[in-house]
């Protein structure tokens, strides 16, 4: 592309056959990636069509999920997904930001590389292993210790009422918090590293303490990028399947207590997809997946734009 643009009228660059073939090959691959995205979207819409036709908008607000009577409403799953994801966000965002600040602004380079690696490992642990740990360690601990404790001290809030079961939205939210923390920490770190050192030095030269420097020079600069990181984390939480499936309790109810079991979109797909006997049932499951796809898509696009605007913004110019 570039080269043909550069050429004025007669001056054509001629490439050898091998060169052209290689270029064409890379172009084909790039096209296939674009096609893959379109194809996935189309496949989802196509498979969900029977369910969309049958239920229309009531699918999204329906509270009943009864495969036997072929009555499908997705609200309980949407609810469970949103509650666990936001719970995860409330916990992981401040902690992740704290980790990013610690690594970027406080740690020596040795500490940074060790702790940075450990935080990366947190992201590398497979989701099913988190789920296993959730079933046998986290859920019992919540049931025996945390949930009774919370009920005792904060029981007047509806969120912390009811029987402590362990397998609950609280468990789902906590495990998601652990899983998205590295995403938030590493992206916040990236955008904070993009803050020019002159900004920090300017603040320090004014007699700012380290915290004041972070507050006036680093955070405002990195703000929208951090927000982007948080949104990417949220996107990951919404779509996370295995760990949540294993600890959320898998009951399609909408209850206000965090101690109550619930169901998430990804979990119901994982559990019921291979058991879906009728076409409509399968189609309804795909439609829930489509909703999830739509939410994560929008979230990701926004998040990328935010991160991108920070990382590209301050630099600019043409490198020679």
């Amino acid at each position, binding site marked *: 592309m*570039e080269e043909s643009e550069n050429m004025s009228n007669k001056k054509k660059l001629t490439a050898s056959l091998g060169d052209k073939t290689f270029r064409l090959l890379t172009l084909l691959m790039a096209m296939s990636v674009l096609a893959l995205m379109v194809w996935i979207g189309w496949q989802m819409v196509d498979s969900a069509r029977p369910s969309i036709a049958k239920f229309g908008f009531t699918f999204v607000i329906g509270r009943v999920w009864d495969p036997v009577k072929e009555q499908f409403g997705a609200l309980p799953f949407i609810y469970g997904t949103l509650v666990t994801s936001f719970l995860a966000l409330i916990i992981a965002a401040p902690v992740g930001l704290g980790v990013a600040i610690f690594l970027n602004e406080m740690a020596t380079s040795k500490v940074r590389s060790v702790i940075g690696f450990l935080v990366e490992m947190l992201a590398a642990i497979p989701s099913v292993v988190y789920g296993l740990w959730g079933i046998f360690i986290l859920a019992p601990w919540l049931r025996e210790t945390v949930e009774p404790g919370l009920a005792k001290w904060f029981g007047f809030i509806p969120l912390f009422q009811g029987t402590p079961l362990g397998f609950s939205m609280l468990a789902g939210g906590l495990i998601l918090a652990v899983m998205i923390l590295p995403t938030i920490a590493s992206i916040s770190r990236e955008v904070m590293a993009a803050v020019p050192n002159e900004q920090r030095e300017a603040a320090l030269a004014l007699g700012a303490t380290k915290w004041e420097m972070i507050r006036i020079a680093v955070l405002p600069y990195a703000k929208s990028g951090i927000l982007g990181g948080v949104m990417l984390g949220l996107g990951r939480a919404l779509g996370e399947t295995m760990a949540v499936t294993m600890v959320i309790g898998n009951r399609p109810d909408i209850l206000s207590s965090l101690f109550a079991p619930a169901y998430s979109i990804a979990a119901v797909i994982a559990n019921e997809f291979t058991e879906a006997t009728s076409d409509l049932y399968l189609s309804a499951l795909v439609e829930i997946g489509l909703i999830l796809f739509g939410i994560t898509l929008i979230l990701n696009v926004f998040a990328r734009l935010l991160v991108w605007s920070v990382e590209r913004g301050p630099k600019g110019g043409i490198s020679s």
Partner: protein
Amino acid sequence: MGQSLSIHNLEAWYGSNKILKGINMEIRPNQVTAIIGPSGCGKSTFVRCINRMHETLPRTRVRGEISLDGRSIYDLNPVALRKTVGMVFQKANPFPSMSIYDNVVAGLRLNGMKNKQELKASAEKSLRMAALWDEVKDRLNYSGMSLSGGQQQRLCIARALAVEPSVLLMDEPASALDPIATTHIEELIRSLKEIYTIIIVTHNMQQAARIADSTAFFLSGELVEHGPTSEIFTNPHDKRTEDYITGRFG
């Protein structure tokens, strides 16, 4: 042997910036021609037009005519042209993934030469011409990056020579080097003009005076004056040349 170059009404753009505004210049074979001028005057772009490197950058455009021994360079495939017109860059850029030896023969090998004996002979010849042979002959398998800055630049010169060009373009080849390495490179350039036509861009006027047979002074994309080096430095015709040489601007 070196070839002559004739440049006719050469214009070049970067984006909407017109960098060269109609250059006309004759360059004689087997001479060192120095291009001097303040930063941003288009001297680098000028030499990059001669081997059609300028066009490889995005949003660039070139118009005009350049001919090599009377033959338009635009009739040649740019890849073939660059075998005839070699180039050495401002910063030494050996291929980091290759050894010293592989760097020197990279051009030959990638252009299809397979014979080990020939490659070896050519590597030695090029390294000798670049006055680097004695320093590296015992460690040809070391990475090119293991050399000092001056040695790296001479390695790049050897790499360019191995392809056996007839014209050698040098874009401030010594600007990143210390004085001793610079002296080495300058001696090298003087000895190479026996075989090659050399065009060297430099911001260092003493350097131009030391090594060039003829000197061209560029200003804001125009060729102000081109003549024998001694004349340019002692008796410039143009007031602007005089101002630049005597250090009144630039």
